[in-house]
């Protein structure tokens, strides 16, 4: 029970006090463990592919493998369960990007290949690509002007 009178003006502060908070330490722990594990798996693939390819090709192949695995896990309905506790740990690595493209593609399959899969596939990943490209251009310009 609040010790003061709740009004329309202080309602947001009252709700914020009252609401359960997510545990940042717990979230960070799982993000670290899951994100780290994904990176270790990626590194293992790089080492494996290095037996047959040069290091640049091995890295590209390892990324492709992770994307493939994440797409499979999304299709089997596993990846969202990982993301539910891993948070950024499974969103930030390249596997999260794969999940962000595959999940809307699956979801909107019911509306057909053009208006469904085609139109909605980049629903989640689209803003990431647009902002990523924009910021990379800005950073490149800054580097050109002030950098080496």
């Amino acid at each position, binding site marked *: 029970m609040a010790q003061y009178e709740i009004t329309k003006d202080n309602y947001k502060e009252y709700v914020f006090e*009252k*609401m359960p908070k*997510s545990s940042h330490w717990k979230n960070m722990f799982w993000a670290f463990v899951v994100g780290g594990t994904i990176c270790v798996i990626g590194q293992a693939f790089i080492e494996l592919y290095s037996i047959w390819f040069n290091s640049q090709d091995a890295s590209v192949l390892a990324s492709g493998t992770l994307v493939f695995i994440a797409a499979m896990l999304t299709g089997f309905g596993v990846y969202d369960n990982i*993301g539910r506790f891993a948070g950024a740990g499974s969103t930030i690595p390249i596997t999260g990007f794969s999940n962000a493209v595959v999940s809307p593609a699956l979801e909107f399959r019911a509306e057909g290949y053009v208006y469904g899969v085609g139109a909605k596939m980049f629903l989640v990943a689209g803003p990431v690509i647009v902002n990523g490209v924009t910021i990379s251009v800005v950073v490149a310009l800054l580097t050109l002007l002030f950098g080496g």
Partner: protein
Amino acid sequence: MQYYKKRTLVFDNANIAEGYTVAGPKENDGRYKGFFDLALKDDMFGQNTFERAERKMFEHAIEGAIAKANLTAADIDVVIGGDLLNQIVSVAFAARKQHAGFLGLYNACATFVESLIAGSAMLNNGLDYVLCTAGSHFSTAERQYRYPLELGVLRSPVTQWTATGVGATVLTSHKQPVPIRITRATVGRVVDYGVMDVNNMGAAMAPSACDTLVTFFKDTNTVPSDYDVIYTGDLGKLGSDILMDLARQEGYDISAQLHDCGASLYWDEQQTYQGGSGAACSALVFNAVLLSRMRRGEYKRILLAGTGALMSPTTSFQGDSIPAITHLVEVTA
């Protein structure tokens, strides 16, 4: 309360003939397992899209309620109802299989109680049988309001889980062997306390629930203890706590009577955080649980307050706060 005007309706012939429910698998694993008339093993319900599944649930609930009341489709004068999908397609498409007139409603998760009020008013105007229905489906709502189902995201602890289910009630002006009647109703106002967080709908709706409840108590000179239970629709656990605080501030202690359909729908282990949300919550709990308890004489007089958050994804992305509404019916056995 900043504004008050007497506006409670009184009905003298809104008898409840029967209620029928179709519940999703997760709902039937919850606290009310076994209460539902039809529990789905699979939320696709044999259809190839979730939208068609939701539509089929409405068809079953409407037909089920009519059959359970020993009536035929030709007896029903009007079907009234709504769902959460754009253009309220689920119930409208299901109604094309009926001969009755159709009135489509939308007040988000308050739609079920809204349909009971509209139905009771029609009986007052001379109709014989009216069917009121509302429902929601987790998978159709999720993709309309939030993210794709398989997207791996961390859910906020204030979120709720959209319930899958449809409830239908047959109201009639004819006296019933077990008399359960809708006796009074208060039509809610749209109340907006400026909550912006679409995950926290309980907080957005609690002020409107308080507004409607207090209006009803003032209009009818009743107090919370006159009722066996007061059920809100889908405020969730946090929203219910807030409502108790707000109501106490207005001089009404509802802590002994207050329950929430959504918050009570699932077990904690089902990880719905604040509980269920969606038009299905009040439609399922009222038809499956509250009606049967009233039939058995456990409850004599109850209040059902359907709560709805009236935002859309577009208004939220455009930075608007969440307006909310609460409609209330008094049900007497």
